[in-house]
């Protein structure tokens, strides 16, 4: 991913800043610039998600793309944040630890490095909320 492509979404990637439609109350993370329910009647404002949520479904990834090759096996999950929106992310735990309904909370982590001299991408992952 190019520097600008990653950098333009740093508030979202680092701090889970999504958006909210003030018309219908829906929260969006990943952020949306247009409410799909209200469309042009919606009023979109930035919204800070709490980072608390639960695992809705998951998989342990054994065959990864080059980006996460060194991390395999890792736990991939769809997490429903307490605001009601859902996000795809890593859960940092043992593969046999994860279950549907597991409470999780967001953490700031290194995502990957573009080689020894390349850019380091940081972002959000999740850990069990105990």
């Amino acid at each position, binding site marked *: 991913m190019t520097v600008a492509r990653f950098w333009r979404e740093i508030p979202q990637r680092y701090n889970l800043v999504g958006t909210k439609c003030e018309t219908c109350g829906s929260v969006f993370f990943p952020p949306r610039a247009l409410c799909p329910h209200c469309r042009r009647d919606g009023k979109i404002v930035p919204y800070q998600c709490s980072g608390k949520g639960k695992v809705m479904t998951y998989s342990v*990834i054994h065959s990864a793309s080059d980006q996460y090759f060194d991390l395999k096996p890792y736990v991939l999950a769809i997490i429903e944040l307490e605001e009601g929106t859902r996000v795809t992310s890593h859960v940092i735990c043992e593969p046999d630890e994860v279950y549907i309904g597991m409470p999780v909370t967001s953490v700031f982590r290194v995502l990957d490095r573009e080689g020894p001299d390349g850019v380091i991408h940081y972002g959000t992952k999740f850990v069990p909320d105990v």
Partner: protein
Amino acid sequence: MRDVAIIGAGITRFGERWTTSLRDLCTEAGIAAIEDANVTGEQIDAMFVGSMSAGRFIGQEHVGALVADYVGLGGDLHIPATRVEAACASGGLAFRQAVAAVSSGMSDVVVAAGVEKMTDVGDATDVLAGAADREWESFAGATFPGLYAMIACDYIHKYGLTREQLAQVAVKNHYHGARNPYAQFQNEITLSTVMNSTLVASPLRLFDCSPVSDGAAAVIVCPLDRAREFTDTPIKVLASAQAGDTIALHDRPDFSTLGATVAAGNSAFRQAKLERKDVDFVEVHDCFTIAELCAIEDLGFVPKGTAGKFTEEGQTQLGGKLPVNTSGGLKACGHPVGATGIKQIWEVVQQLRGEAGRRQVEGAEIGMTQNVGGTGATVVSHLFGRV
């Protein structure tokens, strides 16, 4: 709107075609379709080519023009060729564009082709991940098997599918593939082959996944009332449906229901004025074993949560109540992504003409296809019948 018929179909052997380039794959399938339809280049009005990602698989864009040129329709005849892309639904969507072109009266004789040359790239996993949301799924660590694995995890949690039922989808598709001379894998396998294969993304193992493949397929359509000029066995397009959904799996209300399959299926049956029981066989998008189970449920053939049992009983195998993927499906026939949607239609043509040999569905009158892009953000579905 004019009725549309298929007058010819051609295909290449699917597989690891190391000695064959994208343009040569297309030429092989295109010539086969043109000979089958008994048309000349001068009679062809337009061409649509489905390709998911020639740009990343072989660094080639402008695939419509390239293919038209090398099948002899570009340089001398200047036939308009359009590339169509909707990830793994590119082929089905190219066919739908061809149907629309004929149905509307804009064109008379139109070629719909699909192609993918996947074995020339190292990290095919990353190219395929582009069918999902690159920024918020793939970059976050989701591989394509990983996304379907999360569909499977949700399905198992809700409906209690057994590992054997899931594996039976692959066993059945290899049984069919062993009867298709164009299939990538023409060997039968057992439940233990699937259940002892290496984990890719739990619960999905290697034999739950369709392979990386090279291949091409092409069909030719024209107005139904002209079809007899070219063939004694035209196949009528009874319905052409397409539906959309959110690009990301995480935005769906129910992960194990493909809303676009439900919508496209309902639309297709409405257009054709047919019931589910009228369909004799179906080609669905089994990119992973779980996808076939979701497909036959979401198309309305069996109630939600029962496709595993239906499969285990042998009802989706040749001789069962609803043969599914007699071509071998994506699992055994292979999955050159842009070609798959056209291959499904090619298989329907073989079956409805009664030319499917050892995998023939006896007395087949009505066939259906379901072609999925991504995890279901695009679904294209067609119904076909004998004339």
